């Protein structure tokens, strides 16, 4: 299901050579010494592939007891959800049929594993994201996340808790299809015509 389309035509480039940059005024620069050099004809190929459909739920945590054990807490919730999917969907949906992710803003949502800071904020936003083959399945699995997020216990509190603040009701937001870039090549055809489909239409004709 690859969709690809030649997108850029290039026959020559301005490049190299001795260049100087001279500030002319506050907003203008004069560049000297650029050269026009002919290069082989190339066609840039870009492509994307569909990965499925996504549903998300936005919410947050303010309880400092949960925040200080967030990874552990989310790990237990993930395990619980995976069990629920296997049970509720009767084994029809395997672990490879969906992807569950938590983006924890206030901790490491933006840089993920590359985040060097280790102290989360006093409140964190959690975007729960499910990707699956169909929109219905993504939403169904996301719905299975809501109860464990709301009520997963922690040792510090004795009794039932509500540890997650949903932003919306209904909490689930359907995001539609998800696409991923998967192709980024430069083709060097013998003849530029071979890269494109042609349809020749004659207009008018003999009268």
């Amino acid at each position, binding site marked *: 299901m690859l969709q690809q389309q030649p997108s850029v035509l290039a026959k020559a480039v301005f490049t190299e050579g001795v260049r100087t940059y001279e500030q002319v005024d506050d907003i203008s620069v004069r560049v000297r010494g650029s050269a026009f050099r002919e290069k082989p004809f190339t066609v840039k190929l870009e492509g994307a592939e569909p*990965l499925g459909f996504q549903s998300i739920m936005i919410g947050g945590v303010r309880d400092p007891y949960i925040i200080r054990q967030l990874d552990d807490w989310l790990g237990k919730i993930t395990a619980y959800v995976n069990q629920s999917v296997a049970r509720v969907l009767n084994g029809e949906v395997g672990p490879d049929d969906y992807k569950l992710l938590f983006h924890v803003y206030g901790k490491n949502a*933006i840089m*993920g594993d*590359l985040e060097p800071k280790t102290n989360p904020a006093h409140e964190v936003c959690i975007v729960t994201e499910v990707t699956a083959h169909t929109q219905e399945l993504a939403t169904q699995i996301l719905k299975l996340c809501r109860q464990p997020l709301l009520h997963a216990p922690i040792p510090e509190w004795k009794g039932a808790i509500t540890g997650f603040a949903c932003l919306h009701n209904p909490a689930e937001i359907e995001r539609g299809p*998800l696409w*991923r*870039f*998967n192709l*980024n090549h430069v083709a060097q055809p013998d003849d530029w015509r071979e890269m494109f489909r042609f349809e020749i239409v004659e207009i008018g004709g003999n009268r």
Partner: protein
Amino acid sequence: MRPLSEIASLIRSKNAGPFVLTFDIMMANEADFDRVVASGQLTAAQFARMYRCPVQSVRCFECRNALAFKFSIPRPVTQGDIGDADMHGGQQFAPLMEIMIP
């Protein structure tokens, strides 16, 4: 010692296509540029460590005529793929701000 954020006039990150993340670190004058060059802190090895990628995958450029440093690394997650949380790659530079420059 001062953090790079107090010396540079601009530190930024951005997609360079969907598979590459690129960083620009710009100086306001030659003295600051020379100071950062001399510090030896902006190197491929430093980037490889901070962004957890093989040092051979880091491309780095010192552009004296632009008073700028440029680094490119393979995008940790392809743009838009599951797990990517920065579609434009614009917020990946922040840890660079704290690099200490003698």
